[in-house]
């Protein structure tokens, strides 16, 4: 891994380009580095990595990189929950903030070549998986079947709508959506995300398949049960873990789970690794 000669903790100044509403409290922030050389260097990130975002005078927080390196733009999708995310939501196009990274292991995309990919996301769990999905589609010939299962509480909680529309229509991938509670506009499936696996028209890939699971803890537990019931091995179930993080570079100690420093050893782990961490996730 390459590391800059200067401070590990020095962010680079970024400019906010535009803001897009996703769902309630969640917005996508498109940005670029002031320094074009910085932008070019950053664009070498891998799907599944994250960055530390600085709002100067307020603080710093970790955020996944939902774009794929195969795309042109860089952006974050952020839910407003506390002081930093609140301050980011208050920024206007042209405002400056800080970014350092990319950090973390990311998904080993080469290891999945030749395999089927099953993505299972709940709620904003789609944020860390988006990069991986877009990347796999950009290199479609390297992978087998691609299936996306995405569930949200209500139709208005489905994020990345333009992407979802594209994925539903794209040839060569299967995209299934569900909501827990429908509204009058909803024509699709109703039920938790795992109920999609049992829909009559769904033929789940299991053999030679890697499953990616991201979502709230309760959804995670049920989906893991479902997948294991279908015959998925622990080492072929992959997730990203989230922990309170202060540094992103393996020093502050906040993100530890058992033997792992999530910021450097993760955030991507197989379920086999998760079970061996030595601490509950």
């Amino acid at each position, binding site marked *: 891994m390459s590391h800059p000669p200067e401070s590990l*903790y020095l962010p680079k100044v970024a400019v906010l380009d535009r803001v897009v509403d996703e769902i309630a409290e969640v917005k996508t922030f498109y940005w670029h580095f002031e320094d074009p050389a910085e932008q070019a260097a950053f664009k070498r990130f891998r799907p599944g990595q994250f960055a530390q975002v600085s709002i100067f005078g307020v*603080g710093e927080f970790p955020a996944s990189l939902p774009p794929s390196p195969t795309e042109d733009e860089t952006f974050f999708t952020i839910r407003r929950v506390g002081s930093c995310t609140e301050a980011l939501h208050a920024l206007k196009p042209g405002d400056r903030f800080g970014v350092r990274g990319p950090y973390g292991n990311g998904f080993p995309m080469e290891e999945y070549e030749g395999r089927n990919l099953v993505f299972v996301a709940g709620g904003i769990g789609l944020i860390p998986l988006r990069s991986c999905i877009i990347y796999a589609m950009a290199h479609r010939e390297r992978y087998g079947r691609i299936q996306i299962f995405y569930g949200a509480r209500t139709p208005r909680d489905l994020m990345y709508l333009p992407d979802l529309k594209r994925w539903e229509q794209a040839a060569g991938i299967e995209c299934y959506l569900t909501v827990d509670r429908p509204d009058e506009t909803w024509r699709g499936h109703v039920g938790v995300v795992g109920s999609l696996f049992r829909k009559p028209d769904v033929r789940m890939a299991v053999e030679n398949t890697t499953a990616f699971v991201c979502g709230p803890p309760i959804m995670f537990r049920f989906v893991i049960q479902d997948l294991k019931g279908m015959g998925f091995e622990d080492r072929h179930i992959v997730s990203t873990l989230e922990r309170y993080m202060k540094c992103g570079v393996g020093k502050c100690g906040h993100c530890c789970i058992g033997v792992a420093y999530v910021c450097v050893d993760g955030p991507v782990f197989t379920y086999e690794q998760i079970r061996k961490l030595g601490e509950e996730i």
Partner: protein
Amino acid sequence: MRARLIHQDDLPRLVARLRRDYEVVAPFRGRGRDTAFEVVTDRNQDQLALHLPNPVYPPKRYALPHIERLLRIRRTDGGYDLQPAYDETPRAIFGIRSCDLAGILHLDSFYLGRDFRDDHYARRRRNLFLVNVVCTDVEEDIDENCFCVCTDTGPAAREGFDLQLMDLGQGEWMVVAGSPAGEKLLEEPFFRRGGPEHIRRRRAILTGVRAQFKDMTSWFAATVRYVSRGKVLESTWQEIGRRCLECGGCTYLCPACTCFTVSDRQTGPDTWERVRLWDACALSGFTRMAGGHNPRKAVHDRRNRRFFRKLAHYFIQRELSMACVGCGRCVDTCHGDIGMPSVVEMIRRATVMEETRHVPSA
């Protein structure tokens, strides 16, 4: 390693020599048995002492300050100017104990190793000169809570110092150089050559001092094994957790704890600084995440964390050193009597009892 002798009365000359190149910090007596590291000045230099209780507040802060500025932030016309902040003051610690030295060596492997090298730490550390003193005075230097013999970090450090001082009695001190910078200093005129007799005295004194630790059998190795293999019963962790008052004292006084938090504070109308501050896994806010979810809700989960991080074989291998140096400060400070030696003892006793319970009686 080269060794020399220095007379007791010449120790101030050594300090004066160091003060030409460094800001020198050394332990001083306060009230009663209180001692503290302070900067040596013209006014206090004649109160310097080497046999005294080890200060409660460890000298770790000269390698990793309690509060350290990382970044200066200035808002400019439509942007920000960011300057990393470094402390490169040449500094010498005169009289660092072997346990505290081991603490700094542990910080070295943690902060300078692995994927990322911490430049703020590296630059401060590069300018730090360490004069280790061997604990030989069983009345003053050592107390009943010291367990460096169990962690293999003392009473005499084997490496990591620039100079090591050891009292051989009769006004004579042995000085060992452990680095090129230390060797260079040995050329000063107040150092003399010693002989085989001094080596014999050194050995005899060390044997005597080690014997002082005779009832300190804290069964470290066995406990490391139990913790690493996940053999410690949940009920034992709970018992330990019940005794923790969550004051954080153990972590703040620990010479080998590395965790920190980061905070921005305003320093002027358009300026801020980003600082890091020591943090403690003992405290409940340590892992609390956005939305209020806290993966380590129960006290015993956090206690478990502290001892797991310090004793698990995985981490000892990773840093090639254990994050416990046997200084005994957690024993002194803990209201619940769960300093490291007590915990080691509780784990060992409970685990052994559990294991023997399953042995069918003959």
